């Protein structure tokens, strides 16, 4: 046993897969200890907030101490932030239509561009072929550019509850800064928010955990059924084997997804929890394990040590437990690993069809994918809503298959490099 384990951990593929899997498991366990809060709490108004650090504007103004920093590039950055490349191209287009030679306009030099714009732009001017929307766009752009190069600060005022008059509270200069540590409310949303306004990262970690548990439950069920049927069919043989093989062959040919769809639909929306789905997946996925175990057992059945055991009068249970199971243990472990991976994929497929677990407390990877697809995150370019989910699923199945391939090479010398 010890020797086998050492051999297993010498296989590069197994170790890589194992490390990835353990890293995922560690994140799933440790993350909730650090970041507290319900995984499905709706924290934002509006959907698909992009990833980043969110700083409370209110708290920054009311920060106890403000600092003055003299940074040369501050003004340039401020303008660049407000004036996108598209805006610059549009400005150039207007100026060219106005008759200014193209060579004189350099859209990378903000100061010259703004200067030219300020001198030439006339909001009432209309060029032939320009749509009304475009004219409006130029007016808006012009309005937003005003005061861009000014050096005055901004005055913050509050309404006096008695008189209703505005009273100045504080003036913020352009060189005023606050330290992030002094701002009461800062929220890091590494993966933004999803279509319901929930923190994607927290949700994803929880979903990975739930999906792994689901895979584990489904994998255990599928492996137990497959192992039992495979052992019975392979060892006892005769009509028992015929019946078992008949059922197994039937379920091999009927697509698993069809059974999953029919059963999950029949269970009905209300009763479709995570555990139910796991059980359903387990009950439809045992076929491959049963086939593999059966063929192994058949090749073992007439070995000398098994015959010896039979002659010594041991019971079937004893023979299976001591003379058969140890020889197929490695196959069963490998099949179990694959079952977990395919159960996680099956759940995802089912959820995309709208037949996944119907829950309001627990996310699963499939459900997150389903939500992102329904709200068209992929078309809208909201990559943070679906891409991390795909990566999480791919990492889980990839790590498990690497472990499986590694084990296969250890126990099956013909496949070794």
């Amino acid at each position: 046993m010890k020797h086998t384990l050492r051999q297993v951990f010498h296989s590069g593929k197994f170790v890589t897969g194992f490390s990835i899997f353990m890293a995922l498991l560690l994140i799933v366990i440790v993350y909730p200890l650090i970041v507290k809060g319900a995984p499905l709490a709706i924290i934002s108004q509006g959907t698909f907030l992009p990833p980043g650090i969110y700083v409370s504007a209110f708290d920054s103004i009311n920060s106890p101490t403000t600092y003055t920093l003299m940074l040369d590039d501050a003004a340039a950055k401020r303008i660049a932030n407000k004036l996108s490349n598209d805006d610059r191209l549009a400005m150039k287009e207007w100026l060219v239509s106005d008759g200014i030679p193209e060579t004189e306009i350099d859209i990378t030099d903000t100061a010259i561009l703004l200067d030219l714009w300020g001198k030439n732009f006339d909001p009432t001017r209309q060029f032939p072929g320009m749509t009304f929307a475009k004219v409006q766009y130029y007016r808006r752009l012009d309005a937003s550019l005003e005061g861009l190069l000014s050096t005055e600060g901004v005055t913050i005022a509050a309404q006096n509850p008695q008189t209703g008059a505005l009273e100045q509270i504080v003036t913020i200069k352009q060189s005023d800064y606050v330290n992030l540590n002094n701002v009461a409310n800062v929220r890091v949303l590494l993966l933004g928010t999803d279509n319901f306004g929930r923190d994607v990262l927290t949700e994803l970690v929880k979903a990975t955990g739930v999906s792994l548990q689901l895979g584990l439950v489904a994998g255990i069920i599928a492996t137990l059924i497959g192992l039992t049927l495979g052992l019975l069919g392979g060892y006892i043989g005769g009509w028992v084997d015929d019946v078992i093989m008949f059922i197994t062959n039937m379920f091999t040919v009927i697509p698993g997804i069809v059974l999953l769809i029919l059963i999950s639909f029949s269970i009905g929306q209300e009763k479709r929890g995570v555990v139910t789905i796991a059980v359903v997946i387990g009950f439809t996925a045992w076929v491959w394990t049963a086939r593999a175990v059966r063929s192994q057992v058949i090749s073992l059945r007439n070995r000398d040590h098994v015959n010896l055991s039979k002659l010594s009068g041991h019971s079937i249970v004893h023979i299976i437990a001591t003379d058969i199971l140890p020889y197929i243990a490695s196959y069963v472990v490998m099949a179990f690993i694959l079952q977990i991976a395919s159960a996680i994929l099956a759940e995802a497929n089912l959820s995309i069809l709208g037949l996944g677990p119907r829950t309001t407390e627990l996310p699963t990877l499939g459900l997150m994918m389903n939500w992102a697809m329904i709200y068209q995150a992929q078309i809208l370019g909201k990559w943070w809503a679906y891409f991390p989910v795909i990566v999480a699923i791919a990492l889980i199945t990839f790590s498990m298959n690497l472990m499986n391939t590694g084990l296969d090479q250890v126990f099956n010398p013909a496949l070794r490099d």
Partner: protein
Amino acid sequence: MKGYRKYFLNKLLWFLVTFVFAFLLNFVLPRLMPGDPVAAIVARLAQGMSNTTGVQAIYQQYADLFGTNRPMLEQFFIYMKNVLHGNFGYSFSQYPRTVADTLKSAIWWTVCLQFPAIIVGWLIGNTLGALAAYLKKGFDKLLMPVSIFVSNFPAFGMAVILMVVFGVGLKWFPTSGGYGFDLIPSFRWSFIWSVIIHYQLPFWSIVLIAIGGQAIGMRSMSIYELNADYVKYSRFLGIKDWKIVGYVFRNAMLPQVTGLALSIGTMVGGALVAEIIFSYPGLGTTLLHAVMGQDYPLISASTLIITVMVLIANFTIEILYGFIDPRIKAAQSD
């Protein structure tokens, strides 16, 4: 030829028994669903109606129409008779369209998308796997991890990524549908062209997934065979290398053919989800709409058709296999 006939009849019998079983599952499972689908339709139609006798009458009419008020056994015989006539009843969610009408076009989109994609993926995957086993070294080192990663990639993940990169980002291909939304199906060039470019992304997403798994299987099979005694013996005899390689790959190919027969069901499952991602007008998308509309005649008919398609594909492969593998003939004529 006698041996083949026995093999063929054996497979045909098996095919029919599986079909009957699948048919039974298809009928029974959706009807176990709690809740009354007819009541849901009536609730939708009778919105704002205050006359209870009127609502009752509508309910009765629909229950008669769909036959949901009869005993289960009677429903089964009616269903069986209707299915034999190609009549799957009315769709609940798209009433008064019939299920047969809804599915008629969807079947062809699915057949034309999935089976070519699976076969192309199988061919490319086997070629790559055989090459990896034969060339070893760099090619194998590169191909194997990529194959393992790709074959474990969820089918919908591949679909979404292809769509985002080539559809949304590069704008080379359209992102959804089977043809341009502004076109009417006809045999005009513009329509055919539109179908072809809409076909590319779903097709390649299915092909790519299929390649990985097949390449891995073919590689291990070929390595097994390359180390077999007959290969060493042939080398001692001085048979040319390319000839040996030919034998080896022919032998390695056989389990791959059976593997295709066994895994075609799983592949179709993944491909159905890929269809949904691209809103391809096939059975996958139809199923999605059926699930959303709680439409059990449509679900049951779609799953039945998917099962039948997979069964036929499986049967065809088994028959072809009988011709390719000489051992089958030998075994049957004993």
